[in-house]
């Protein structure tokens, strides 16, 4: 069923992309570089794989390729064909200060087109063309990352709810879990036990669902980010907005449910008198730094992993310009390194999800101390 939907979506996207894509008059499917040149001339705005060779010196725009992959986009680039890239157009939802809400498909903005006064600006974001110059409207478009977020959240909800259904329908005392329940149980119980150890017997139950949600969310999105093709490939956990929301959720959980003792430690700790005015500043600062460190750790780790893999892949295309021997040998090397980094990323995907959850539970545990 899912595959059917995918095929349907893909064919739709193909149709829409074909309607907009520039026709490659040369028809030379083998000469990638000349096609890149053509596309680069036709579409100067958004950097994506097919457009990353600057038209002037005929070299690969590695930065453009990499940022095209790890960044957000208004359309989901699926793959390239000789006729041009195939993209899944996504809805653009913007609110202009003057003209109110606008909602239209992103393919209307492709190739620098202006639609309803909006255009994709130099930063790759939708801007409104006003007499005073380009203005950034309130932008809540369903971008590539948002769509990936929605899909992965649905997938996660399905995974957990289906395994919960197994537990509701079966007698746990007489049957061992099977299927999805058997897959999810170890992960959930790992976090549940960790919450118990770090937060304490008394009230870990209150926090365990949040920690489980955060862990599974990060883990799933980390893995989806490693998958190189649709519907994976969106760099969600390597996006600072995502990790920031997660870290702020932890920060709020910690500070809203903190005990009297926790706040006493921050504002009136038991230290010699002359330190009393200094300590609150340090403690408040440390409380604020915790979510920032959570944000940066996850974001930077995932981003760095993606960039490294992309660099490995790019080496192949950089070397294409040099001698065949160098090209061949470096291809082998970069494929091997790429494989190694992919496997490393699988490990990091788990470790970072675990570290985020563990630190969250430790912070919560510290804020729940009663004496």
């Amino acid at each position: 069923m899912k595959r059917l939907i995918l095929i349907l979506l893909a064919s739709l996207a193909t149709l829409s992309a074909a309607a907009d894509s520039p026709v490659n008059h040369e028809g030379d499917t083998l000469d990638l570089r000349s096609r890149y040149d053509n596309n680069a001339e036709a579409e100067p705005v958004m950097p994506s794989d097919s457009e990353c060779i600057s038209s002037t010196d005929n070299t690969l725009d590695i930065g453009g390729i990499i940022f095209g992959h790890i960044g957000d986009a208004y359309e989901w680039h699926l793959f390239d064909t000789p006729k041009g890239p195939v993209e899944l157009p996504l809805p653009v939802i913007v609110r202009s200060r003057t003209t109110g809400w606008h909602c239209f498909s992103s393919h209307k903005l492709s190739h620098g087109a202006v639609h309803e006064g909006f255009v994709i600006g130099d930063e790759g974001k939708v801007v409104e063309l006003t007499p005073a110059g380009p203005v950034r409207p309130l932008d809540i478009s369903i971008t590539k990352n948002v769509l990936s977020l929605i899909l992965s959240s649905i997938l996660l909800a399905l995974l957990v709810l289906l395994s919960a259904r197994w537990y509701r329908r079966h007698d746990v005392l007489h049957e061992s879990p099977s299927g999805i329940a058997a897959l999810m149980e170890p992960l959930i119980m790992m976090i549940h036990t960790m919450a118990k150890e770090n937060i304490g017997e008394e009230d870990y139950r209150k926090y365990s669902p949040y920690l489980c949600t955060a862990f599974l969310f990060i883990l799933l999105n980390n893995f989806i980010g490693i998958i190189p093709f649709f519907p994976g490939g969106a760099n969600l956990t390597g996006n600072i907005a995502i990790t920031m929301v997660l870290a702020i959720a932890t920060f709020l959980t910690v500070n809203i449910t903190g005990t009297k003792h926790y706040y006493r430690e921050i504002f009136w700790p038991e230290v010699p008198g002359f330190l009393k005015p200094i300590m609150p500043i340090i403690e408040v600062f440390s409380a604020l730094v915790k979510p920032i460190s959570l944000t940066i750790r996850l974001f930077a780790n995932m981003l760095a992993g993606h960039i490294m893999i992309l660099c490995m892949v790019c080496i192949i295309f950089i070397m294409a310009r040099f001698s065949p021997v160098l090209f061949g040998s470096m291809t082998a090397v970069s494929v091997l390194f790429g494989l190694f980094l992919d496997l490393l990323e699988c490990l990091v995907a788990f470790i970072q999800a675990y570290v985020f959850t563990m630190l969250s539970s430790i912070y919560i545990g510290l804020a729940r101390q009663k004496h």
Partner: protein
Amino acid sequence: MNLVTPDTGLLFWMVVIFALLFFILARFGFPIITSMVEKRNTAISDSLKEAEKVKEMMAETVKEHEKMLLEARAEQGRIIKEATEAKKAILAEAQEKARAESDKILSEARTQIAAEKESALRDIRREVAVLAVSVSEKILREQLSSDAANKEYLDRLYTEAQTLSKDSAKEN
């Protein structure tokens, strides 16, 4: 660089979707799973404890059994010993009795034999006496053909009879 500046749209959607996801999963997902698994865990640990208890009970039962077996064996030995002793005692008693009986029978037989011997001797003696009398009568009848001799003999007989009667009187 837009990598480190969070995008408002993504922030907005992330807050909405993550909050939704959290509420759905925290309400219908994780508590059910964790409570069920904990229920199973407590059931397992309870059964383990139960099994341990049963094992201990079994060990105790086995010990008791062994103790009982040992006791039974001791009892058996004791009984056998007693029975052997009783057998010996009975045998000894029976032998004793038999010996006494045989002694008694022997002594009775002996007295009877003695008595019969006595009576036989008496009979013989009497027979001998009768024979002697008849023999002597025959001899006398020969010798007493003369009167003198007859008379003398009569005297002597007379005295003899007198002593004899005296003897018999004494004997009786």
